[in-house]
């Protein structure tokens, strides 16, 4: 359909503003990380990879990165089975009290992050488990769980219930039906959800900040602590790690399910 010129101008102006605001920080961080100067300046003072060399030598940054990876892995390990089962159950069955359960399962989104984080901090603190990484992983999986459930339930909605009946009439028990029919049908949702959970957990800042102590800071917290003191190009180089991980995640997502899946109407 041909769009009127007025509409085109207005919409495109707003879209270009959006694209610039969305992309500017990424490009600036990329640019700042390869400066050869000691401070971040514009125009940049020539090209060098020395800040990357520097961060490789910084033990605390490397440790923080590894810890972030561990937290994200724990998050996926917890939320993948939990969210998959819940997503399938919510989309496949008509459940008595379904609305109440849905509202309850949306609590991670309706309770402000600072509330969830502080609540978990007090609860985990009372249980004496703070100071470990796994509570951070569990916390990031709780606060993002609705994403996992969403991803799975939207792909389970396309599952034909007759397929499961067919499997059962061929003699498959409930377990076999689940693993051979139901689960493969929702795999795109499971992959999308797990990837989202991994990235969101890797990037999680506030809940991390509340649940870690000085010995186990994660990378976002490490960056936050450093930008409050002084802005040097080595931080830009560290931030590029996040940009690279994000790019990899987007590529995987696009290859496996296609980014267009997010435009599909329910």
């Amino acid at each position, binding site marked *: 359909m041909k769009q009127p010129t007025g*509409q085109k101008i207005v919409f495109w102006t707003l879209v270009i503003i959006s694209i610039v605001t969305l992309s500017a920080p990424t490009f600036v*961080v990329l640019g700042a990380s390869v400066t050869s100067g000691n401070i*971040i300046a514009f125009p940049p003072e020539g090209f060098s990879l020395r800040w990357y060399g520097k961060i490789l030598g910084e033990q605390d940054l490397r440790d923080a990165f590894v810890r972030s990876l561990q937290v994200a892995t724990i998050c996926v390990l917890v939320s993948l089975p939990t969210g998959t089962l819940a997503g399938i159950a919510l989309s496949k069955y008509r459940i008595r009290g379904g609305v109440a359960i849905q509202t309850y399962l949306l609590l991670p989104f*309706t*309770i402000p992050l600072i509330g969830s984080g502080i*609540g978990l901090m007090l609860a985990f603190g009372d249980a004496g488990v703070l100071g470990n990484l796994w509570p951070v992983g569990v916390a990031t999986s709780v606060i993002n769980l609705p994403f996992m459930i969403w991803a799975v339930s939207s792909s389970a909605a396309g599952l034909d219930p007759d397929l499961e009946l067919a499997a059962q009439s061929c003699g498959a028990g409930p377990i076999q039906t689940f693993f051979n029919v139901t689960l493969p049908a929702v795999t795109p949702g499971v992959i999308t959800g797990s990837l989202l959970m991994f990235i969101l957990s890797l990037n999680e800042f506030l809940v991390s900040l509340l649940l870690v102590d000085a010995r186990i800071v994660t990378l976002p917290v490490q960056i936050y602590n450093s*930008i409050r003191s002084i*802005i040097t190009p080595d931080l830009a180089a560290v931030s590029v790690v996040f940009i690279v991980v994000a790019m990899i995640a987007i590529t995987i997502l696009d290859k496996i399910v296609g980014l267009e899946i997010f435009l599909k*109407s*329910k």
Partner: protein
Amino acid sequence: MRNYRSSYPTTWRIMDVFEKAFAAIWPKGRGKYTPYLMLTPAIVLVGTLVVGLLYIGDSSLRTLDRSTFQFSDYWTLENYTRAFSESFTATIIWRSLLGAMIVTVVTLCLAFPYAYIMVRTPKAVLRKFLLIALFLPFFIGQVVRAYGWLIILGNQGMVNDVLGLVGVEPLRLLFNYPAVLFGLVQYMLPFAVLMLAPAMTAIPEEIEAAAGSLGASWIKTMTHVVIPMARPGLVGAGLVVLTLSLTDFAMPAILGGGSQDFIANAIYDQFFRTSDQGFGASLAIILIALGSVLVGVIFTVFGAGTLELGSTDK
């Protein structure tokens, strides 16, 4: 006669063991409870949040004795009366609320055309580009993005360097209210577009064409056809943006530089700077209540929009 079962592949045998085990702990008669069994892990996991809330509620009812730094062993509403009587609380709540509302309106104004063009464009390449431009910042995280803005807007930042080249005095672009709001808008934009796009996809293009062929201008088509039809998406996106920006911590902390605290920052400070856990907890409860009231009002006025989990049309 040969036992035919001996020719079973191993995987079948393993499956059979699982089936038997499952049948033993979950007999067929309980079949109608199976969905609840599947939901149990998620319910337990989210339960940790409920436990956390109980802890906050408990703390909020205990006051700090400044001489001994002990919390009272009885419950009192003193923290709440203090929160409501101090002007500091009102300032911060108003700043957060107003900020969240401005951010919501601006974000929706930017997200709507973005989602519209992304969904409507016939060019697959453009669509992919818009999607990547959306997902990249979404996946990069708040701290790194705020850091990027520090580089761009700082006193020695890029904008001021450029202005310096043409002889303009450095402007103070950071650590003020607009900087925080700007940071929030760009943080919320991907959420808003991703919530809007499915609703936009659901609107058939022919309806717009029909409105146009009946003589409606594009503005009329938008306000009378597309926007009303996209309402579930707009409500969902607006709700997410409103609550997330109302309760945000990182943007006010990094781009506000301590002078533009939102409620979350005030709560954090009570816990980690002033060590007045009780007062901080009461602020947290007030924030949760405020958020829930907002969500409740929007749900009753506009419906749940696209926020529903699972499918609704059964």
